[in-house]
């Protein structure tokens, strides 16, 4: 192939013998990363999708917790001033306000830090977790892995809305790292890591869960037992391998479990707690950065019949074996491949995959071609490289509404976002856009996988989950926020915002059509229609060429709010 010379005019580096066009590369990066950048577009064009993915998998895992712990925690509150009429104790009076303590890392290793008393790990307010999230999502080079972890957080939901995490910000960050480490590994390992995590046990209330007490009416907490089935593995209704629901002889959906099954499953998730609770079950030490233990004395080791006898766990096994057996049962259930595949497809490429596409992906989940079930790297590859994901057909129903939060991150990546002081200070945008990672209102995430906005989408038998957070408030406050950020040249509303760099675009500003080509690529995957382009161009052309920055800002703003930016095909 000849070099793609048109790209030289659009402000993108020209690529010799590109494997794919710049537009195709952008569209892929919108799906597979937190948003295209000039460098990544060129890389995808040079080596193609599959090799880009290989390259991504070879990147080191860029965790979030070491970054948090390498930054100073909040200082402890200074001693209170004396009240009128009181003499301050001399010791207090001599105490200077405490400076911020030293960060723990890298002076101590992560292993040492994990063994420390939770209260010594340092007080980080919740927004610090969000700052680190922004830093990594914008700048980390293992973009695919970061993007995959972001998706898993919407299945294995934990949320800072639970007060239990108020003084344990580090645990939520560590949980995200668990999703980063396991997100492209095997689903069975991911499921186990989540199950043994302090965060999930806290959020779904099985931390300290005990077997039934025959003397009182107390019986095990059923929360995790229900949600691990309903939300994390098999869902509510039996599915065919291509994700279509099975129907009984009366044409009705077939539930996968009933309340008895929940009760039985609840017996498995008993005895979970932090290390060090042998002598003090309720008030032993917290271990938010360590996996949980299952204590035999508190665990129900009787025989358990799961899912109506599908798996019978014999009595008297070690507790961890009970848990492994239960996780195996759910992992091996025929619903799990289509259920999880559909979730992932919705997060990456399409709200309404054809059943053939879903079936192809589910098949890879079932067997990656080498006899392995649950190979998530193979599944993500199958999702991103499938023809239905790569080709923009004439199907007017293809694609999906982009998650609004991802549009914000993509904007920052597109304009080379940088922090003025080392922290990417963006947080608490959920009232504007309806979502924020790690801040869902419930374990059901921000939107249901089968939400359909009333009107032609629902009438066409389609779904559009992201429409559930698109309403009269967010559909206006998101463009308003984009406007503020773009005109200010920075993302956020905290102060010391992440700066946006328009220098490249300012060079293109005198020629509006080239500027439009450039922005159409960067922000819409080259999907901008001629009509949209004309509307924006007419507006930009009203600004004199002597004001290139104003031209650029208006062009960026209008492009970032147009429908082609909101929807990915």
């Amino acid at each position, binding site marked *: 192939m000849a070099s793609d010379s048109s790209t030289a005019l659009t402000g993108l580096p020209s690529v010799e013998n590109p494997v794919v066009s710049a537009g195709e590369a952008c569209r892929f990066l919108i799906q597979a990363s937190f948003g295209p950048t000039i460098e990544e577009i060129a890389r995808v064009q040079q080596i193609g999708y599959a090799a880009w993915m290989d390259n991504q998998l070879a990147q080191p895992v860029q965790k979030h917790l070491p970054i948090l712990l390498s930054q100073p925690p909040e200082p402890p509150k200074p001693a209170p001033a004396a009240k009128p009429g009181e003499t301050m104790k001399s010791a207090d009076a001599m105490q200077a306000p405490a400076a911020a303590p030293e960060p723990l890392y890298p002076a101590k290793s992560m292993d040492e830090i994990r063994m420390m008393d939770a209260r010594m790990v340092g007080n980080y307010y919740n927004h610090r977790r969000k700052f680190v999230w922004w830093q990594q999502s914008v700048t980390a080079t293992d973009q695919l892995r970061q993007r995959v972890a972001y998706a898993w957080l919407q299945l294995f939901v934990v949320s800072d809305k639970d007060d239990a995490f108020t003084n344990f910000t580090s645990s939520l960050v560590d949980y995200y790292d668990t999703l980063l480490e396991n997100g492209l590994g095997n689903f069975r390992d991911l499921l186990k890591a989540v199950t043994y995590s302090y965060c999930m046990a806290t959020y779904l209330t099985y931390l300290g869960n005990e077997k039934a007490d025959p003397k009182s009416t107390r019986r095990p907490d*059923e929360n995790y037992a*229900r949600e691990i089935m309903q939300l994390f593995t098999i869902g509510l209704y039996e599915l065919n391998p291509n994700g279509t629901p099975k129907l009984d002889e009366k044409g009705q959906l077939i539930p996968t479990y009933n309340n008895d099954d929940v009760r039985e499953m609840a017996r498995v998730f008993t005895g979970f707690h932090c290390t060090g609770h042998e002598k003090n079950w309720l008030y032993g030490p917290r271990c938010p950065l360590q996996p949980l233990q299952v204590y035999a004395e508190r665990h129900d080791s009787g025989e358990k019949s799961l899912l109506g006898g599908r798996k019978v766990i014999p009595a008297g096994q070690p507790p961890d074996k009970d848990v492994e057996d239960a996780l195996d049962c759910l992992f091996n259930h025929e619903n799990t491949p289509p259920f999880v595949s559909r979730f992932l497809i919705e997060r990456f490429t399409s709200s309404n995959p054809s059943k053939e596409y879903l079936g192809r992906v589910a098949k890879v989940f079932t067997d990656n071609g080498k006899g392995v079930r649950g190979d998530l790297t193979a599944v993500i590859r199958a999702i991103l490289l499938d023809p239905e994901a790569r080709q923009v057909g004439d199907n007017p129903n293809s694609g999906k509404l982009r998650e609004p939060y991802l549009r914000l991150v993509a904007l920052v990546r597109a304009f080379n976002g940088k922090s003025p002081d080392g922290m990417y200070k963006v947080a608490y945008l959920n009232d504007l856009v309806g979502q924020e990672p790690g801040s869902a209102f419930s374990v059901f995430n921000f939107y249901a996988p089968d939400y359909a906005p009333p*009107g032609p989408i629902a009438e066409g038998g389609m779904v559009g989950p992201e429409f559930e957070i698109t309403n*009269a408030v967010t559909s206006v406050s998101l463009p308003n926020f984009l406007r503020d950020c773009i005109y200010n040249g920075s993302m956020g509303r905290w102060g010391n915002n992440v700066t946006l760099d328009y220098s490249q675009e300012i060079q293109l500003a005198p020629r509006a059509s080239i500027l439009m080509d450039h922005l159409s690529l960067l922000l819409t995957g080259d999907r901008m229609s001629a009509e949209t382009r004309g509307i924006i161009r007419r507006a930009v052309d009203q600004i004199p060429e002597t004001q290139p920055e104003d031209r650029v800002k208006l062009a960026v*703003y*209008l492009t970032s709010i147009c*429908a082609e930016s909101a929807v990915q095909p």
Partner: protein
Amino acid sequence: MNRNSFNSGITRRRFVGQMACAGISCTPLFSTLLNLSLAGRAAADSLSLDSDYRALVCLFLGGGNDSFNMLVPRSGSAYDEYKASRQDIALDSSTLLPLGPSGPNHPELGLHPGMPELKALFDQGQAAFIANVGSLIRPVTLEEFRKETDIPLSLFSHSNQQQQWMTCLPDSPTNTGWGGRAADLLRDQNTGTKVSMSISLAGNNLFQYGRQVFPYSITPNGSVAFKSLAPGQGSPFESVAVKSLLEQQYKTLFEQVYMDTTHSAISAHEAFSGAVEHIDIKTPFPDTTLGKDLHMIARAIAGREALGLKRQTFFVQRGGFDMHAEVLKNQETVLPEVSQAVAAFMTALKEIKVADQVTLFTASDFGRTLTSNGRGSDHAWGGNHFVVGGAVKGGKIYGQYPSLALKTNLDTGQGRLIPTMAVDSYCAELARWLGVPASGLATVFPNIGSFYSPTSGQPPVGFMT
């Protein structure tokens, strides 16, 4: 913001709320997706409202309220049964706020100690409690439950039970809620209005989805203005460009629906903010999210004439009721918050002189297990609710308060009680008060015939005047 370089002389076009029929599909139903105002209504109708305004406020307690710790037997064997079942999570009888004498359908009951404001409303006759309400397809016995005959789909699942409370169709998933279906029938009473009669403080919600009427989302501070179109903000060519983008015909369905949502929001904001912006309510509200939400609802109600609304529903949600881990401490926080916010709301309604015309009612996924898992409780079925308003026949307990002993013929296990009143009956009473005629009740509540005969001339429950 660098706007000095823009020409700030702006001609501002007005959106009227009439949409050009979108290119994808010109069905009337599609245009009503955009239709946060009423299609085809002459905007010039003068609004001659008499005092006949009515509104329902649905306060959804998200997660499943542990309501047998809200409305509690306070004495005698009824209390002993409660205590024996609930053990560590039982309230002390001496702390309960007395709610009057026993009746044929209930023992002596008390209210959770954190809700004195709600008790005061009860004593004034402006609040009532409705006992053991839950989703039913038809009345079922324990035997039928065990055989899974005609029981609601996915009982004990949050998402399904929340939906079933909103749709009143536990036997078949649907995408309209009873509030939306009622709004569809009543919209003719709202002539000339430019915003939806169904207003939500909690975003899109199934309760308010109808076939023609959809929820209009606002914030606790009201509706949101689109900056590019606001006077003194966007330059003329910026606002022209934005309007052109909004009015374009798009090739893909998702693009079209997305832009139409924005377009509708802009029209509705003009009307809503015009009517409500200047309204000031003197009654103080608690500084909680729920307090702010109810304050905004009171302001919106005060603006009803300017909005041309005679019948409305409001939807507001308060989460945090899914108390698997800890019931007693959590209720000490959340129940007072509810009680104080609701009481302030009633006071505000009196201030704007609509106390008899607005009824607030609770809804929740389900009640919770009488037995505990230690300090928490799990998902159950029947639960207790309350209604508040001047039109409520208050100071009474309605429905059949169940025995709270375990292993009764209502106990499906662990103290999950079969409801003794269907959500249909509870909500039909409210819908009827709102103005749904007897002939329309079966449309709004397709299963109502299993519980109540709309032609009987009697109310479904009897707690509304």
